[in-house]
């Protein structure tokens, strides 16, 4: 790891003001330090925001749950308010990483982690192409070993997925990130991350003609470079229940093959509202909007939910090695909806 300058900020205003070229924020640091070891990031200055007081608070304000960005994954996962009103988020947090990492990693930093694509996560210099690491060098995973890669929203320049569990829950819950740059704004978590297809559109809209088209592989979120996440605002809907299902190759301390977050509201045995987000199938949490619409008025039974999930098979574009993910994701979504509705 190359050396850098270090400074701590006591308040967000101070942190944002200190942010210049070559600077990076550090809070838990569980991702950033590994990026620096691999050469994924080489910041010249780290601005430590971990000591900003009052930004790890978890509280209910009216019909919203507010979670400070510096709350750790264990704090979020074990907090009674989160467990009661956003079970899906609590479970997603506790199914992420290890107990040690969850004591360190913050909910603010978690959504900004980078893909687990093995071609991406290698030490500099890379012996293969990766447009995220070196724009224009190609995507080794596109026609390489891609069993863990995207089945939705990918483009030829990049087929990576986003690995965060909490991000899937936050998107399912229609949470918003309160962010601060030159001004404060709310960024819906369904729009926070972008698929590779969306990144292409953003790139074209920005009109940055001087860059190689492959630079779009580096666009992963709609958070601006000078913005800092302060908190998440989660709307609370009484009577709605939620669940998170994570499918992985070992039972604990492993990234998801696929995951599914679901909320369900029932009235007289019929679904009045359902929300579903899939994880590890795309570079963003993938909301199943058509399925959600099709579930309204349906009974909470396997056959009805499976029928509503059919659109997923029409939309999915599996790569050479990951066709299994489509069925796995549909099964996970089915089980998450049933679990959210109280059927195990």
């Amino acid at each position, binding site marked *: 790891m190359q*050396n850098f300058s270090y*400074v701590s900020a006591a308040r967000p205003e101070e942190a944002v003001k200190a942010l210049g070229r070559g600077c990076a924020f550090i809070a838990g640091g569980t991702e950033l330090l590994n990026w620096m070891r691999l050469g994924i990031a080489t910041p010249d200055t780290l601005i430590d925001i971990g000591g900003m007081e009052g930004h790890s608070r978890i509280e209910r304000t009216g019909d919203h749950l507010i979670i400070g960005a510096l709350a750790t994954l264990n704090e979020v996962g074990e907090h009674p308010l989160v467990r009661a009103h956003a079970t899906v988020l609590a479970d997603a947090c506790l199914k992420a990483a*290890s107990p040690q990492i969850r*004591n*360190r990693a913050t909910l603010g930093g978690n959504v900004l982690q980078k893909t687990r694509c093995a071609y991406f996560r290698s030490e500099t210099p890379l012996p293969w192409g990766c447009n995220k690491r070196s724009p224009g060098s190609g995507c080794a995973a596109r026609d390489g070993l891609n069993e863990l890669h995207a089945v939705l929203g990918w483009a030829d320049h990049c087929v990576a997925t986003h690995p965060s569990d909490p991000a899937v829950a936050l998107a399912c819950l229609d949470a918003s990130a309160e962010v601060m740059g030159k001004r404060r704004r709310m960024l819906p978590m369904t729009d926070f991350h972008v698929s590779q297809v969306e990144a292409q559109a953003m790139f074209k809209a920005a009109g940055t003609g001087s860059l190689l088209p492959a630079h779009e592989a580096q666009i992963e979120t709609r958070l601006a470079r000078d913005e800092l996440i302060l908190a998440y605002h989660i709307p609370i809907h009484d009577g709605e229940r939620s669940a998170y299902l994570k499918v992985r190759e070992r039972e604990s*301390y492993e990234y998801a093959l696929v995951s599914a977050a679901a909320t369900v509201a029932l009235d007289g045995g019929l679904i009045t509202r359902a929300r579903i987000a899939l994880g590890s199938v795309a570079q963003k949490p993938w909301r199943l909007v058509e399925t959600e619409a099709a579930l309204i008025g349906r009974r909470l039974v396997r056959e009805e939910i499976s029928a509503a999930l059919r659109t997923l098979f029409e939309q999915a574009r599996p790569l050479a090695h990951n066709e299994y993910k489509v069925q796995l994701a549909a099964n996970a979504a089915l089980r998450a909806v049933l679990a959210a509705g109280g059927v195990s």
Partner: protein
Amino acid sequence: MTDSLSRREFLGASGAAVGVALTPAGATAAPKGRTAERMVDVTCNVNGRPVSAHVEARTTLLDHLRERMDLTGTKKGCNEGACGACTVLVDGKRMNACLILLAQCEGRAITTVEGIAQPDGSLHPVQQAFIDHDAFQCGFCTPGQVVSAAACIAEGHATSEASVREWMSGNLCRCSAYPQITAAVLAAARRA
């Protein structure tokens, strides 16, 4: 080399010499305050003793413990937060020392495996339980397992075999002594 010099002392001494050679001549203590510095001053507490250090900003807690403080019980396994061999307590919470900068430890209280036993040398219940249950083979992961287990029990997560396996999953054992480790953690939890 003299017979009285152990392998660890020899390696420690060589390391220190390299460290001195790499320190730029004329480096001065960084001023306190809110300007970004490549050398940082840190004051914290390790195993009950106050510690002051002047280090490169990139120094991890793990490297400082091992290379500068000779607290080599905390192991460097993967150095990327995957194995748990470097587990320490920071303000009572278990964390991977390889994923923490020493600069982030200002004012914190750190407990390593060397600080787990009683001051009189009597073993922590987890340490005794590991012996009683033969919960190690090569022993490399053991310091991390012991610190993690002590925290796991204090958190209230050592309630069943399934809960221990889940809440100890951040500590890998390549010898796969998991059944014995799980039994040891549960036994220590019953005694706590």
